[in-house]
């Protein structure tokens, strides 16, 4: 167990239980005291918490590179590395473009994704998502209780992304395990992270070979057919992008849906309002994204630089605390209050600048549909016991165990 934190501005620990459970007062403390906090823990990093600072740093791609976006990148101790065949590493050491790319690669790599994830194309999956939500609800509605994270939120994004990629939906549990192994549990456990990444890459590589032999009507086939400057997109690039789609499309959205369920379970007035005023839903989704932003990304400092008088040496890591920015009282009135019809909400839950989340339209659609269907079928649900809810923190924050009950 790590030492408890005594000083949040000079020795923060984003994996400490206190931070994972309730980071909001900690962010307030840091925001009020020190524009850029620093820590030596987990390989060392700097952390901005003010909206303006996150906005500026995200847009300064010269100094703050995306070549490494993991918030903790703990390396295996010598002798603890996985034994790997060199050619195997060759196959899967391809990054996760475009999230890990800087321009110029980033520019074309991102374009490949923007069209399939546009509002119009995402809408084609809405009906299927609605049916999926209802199937999930059918399975537990008569029991009067369910785990809002495990039985509902967690089940939705992996199936939707599987549908887009044309991969078997019965892989859901396996994907979830891999993605958590890479992004959640693996952040502080290098062996698990490496193993999970390898599993995802190997699986996606098999899928790519299958599509080459037998093209389908899916995103993998489409990416393989894309051209950049007249040349086909390299297969290794498609592999990295498929890895990204799985890793970025699962934990994140499921955390957002879970946090929305967690909020609504405790706020009957907000449930009532959404049932009576369904037209409020899009605005409410933005507000829930703001208040419970799941994602903290990282940047790698490409050259010695300085921000707000704070020298940041080359090779440092900066934690892009978008969730803290979204609770900055300088930008958001009453930031700790969820106001479903909030008028001024330029939140940056999906980041800001050229790395704005490419899947944001898909995430919004999944959130909207899953909350609408849940409220339709089970208008009155509450937390069975708020004290047993557990949260994942670090790169992606959201509820992981969250029993809800209804009907009595």
């Amino acid at each position, binding site marked *: 167990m790590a030492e408890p934190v005594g000083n949040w501005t000079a020795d923060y620990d984003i994996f400490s239980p206190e931070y994972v459970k309730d980071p909001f007062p900690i962010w307030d403390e840091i925001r009020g005291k020190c524009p850029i906090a620093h820590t030596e823990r987990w390989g060392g990093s700097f952390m901005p918490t003010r909206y303006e600072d996150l906005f500026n740093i995200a847009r300064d791609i010269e100094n703050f590179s995306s070549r490494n976006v993991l918030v903790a990148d703990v390396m295996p101790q010598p002798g603890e590395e996985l034994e790997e065949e060199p050619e195997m590493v060759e196959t899967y050491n391809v990054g996760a473009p475009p999230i890990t790319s800087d321009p110029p690669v980033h520019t074309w790599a991102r374009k490949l994704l923007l069209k399939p994830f*546009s509002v119009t194309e995402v809408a084609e999956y809405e009906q299927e998502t609605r049916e999926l939500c209802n199937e999930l609800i059918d399975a537990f509605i008569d029991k009067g209780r369910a785990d809002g994270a495990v039985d509902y939120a967690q089940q939705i994004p992996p199936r939707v992304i599987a549908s887009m990629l044309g991969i078997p939906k019965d892989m859901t549990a396996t994907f979830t395990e891999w993605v958590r192994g890479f992004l959640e549990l693996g952040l502080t456990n290098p062996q698990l992270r490496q193993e999970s990444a390898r599993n995802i890459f190997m699986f996606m590589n098999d899928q790519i070979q299958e599509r080459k032999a037998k093209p389908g009507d899916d995103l993998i086939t489409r990416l393989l057919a894309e051209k950049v400057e007249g040349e086909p997109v390299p297969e290794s690039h498609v592999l990295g992008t498929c890895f990204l789609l799985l890793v970025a499309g699962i934990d994140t959205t499921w955390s957002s849906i879970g946090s929305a369920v967690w909020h609504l379970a405790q706020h009957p007035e907000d449930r009532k309002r959404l049932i009576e005023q369904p037209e409020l839903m899009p605005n409410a989704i933005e507000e829930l994204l703001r208040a419970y932003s799941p994602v903290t990304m990282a940047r790698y400092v490409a050259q010695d630089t300085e921000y707000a008088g704070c020298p940041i040496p080359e090779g440092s890591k900066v934690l892009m605390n978008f969730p803290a920015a979204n609770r900055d009282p300088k930008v958001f009135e009453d930031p700790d209050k969820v106001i479903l019809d909030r008028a001024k909400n330029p939140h940056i839950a999906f980041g*800001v600048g050229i790395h704005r989340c490419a899947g944001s339209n898909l995430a919004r659609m999944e959130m909207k549909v899953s909350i609408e269907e849940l409220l339709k079928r089970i208008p009155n649900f509450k937390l069975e016991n708020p004290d047993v809810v557990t949260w994942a923190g670090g790169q992606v924050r959201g509820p992981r165990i969250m029993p809800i009950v209804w009907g009595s």
Partner: protein
Amino acid sequence: MKVQKVTVDSEKCQGHNRCYAMAPGMFKVDELGYATPRGDGVLKTPQDVELANRAVENCPERAIDIVEDEG
């Protein structure tokens, strides 16, 4: 006769689609999600002005502006 116009800075827009979701009659998005004003962007009614102001306040990239123009 001065008129007010809504503009989108295409250098700043990153395709968040917030303006389009809020005011689909005032903004359009291309197939990649990048926004532009519909038509000439002239704000004809007080409701238009209010809607345009909301778009300004909700764009995370600060890409939307309201400018005075010789109509």
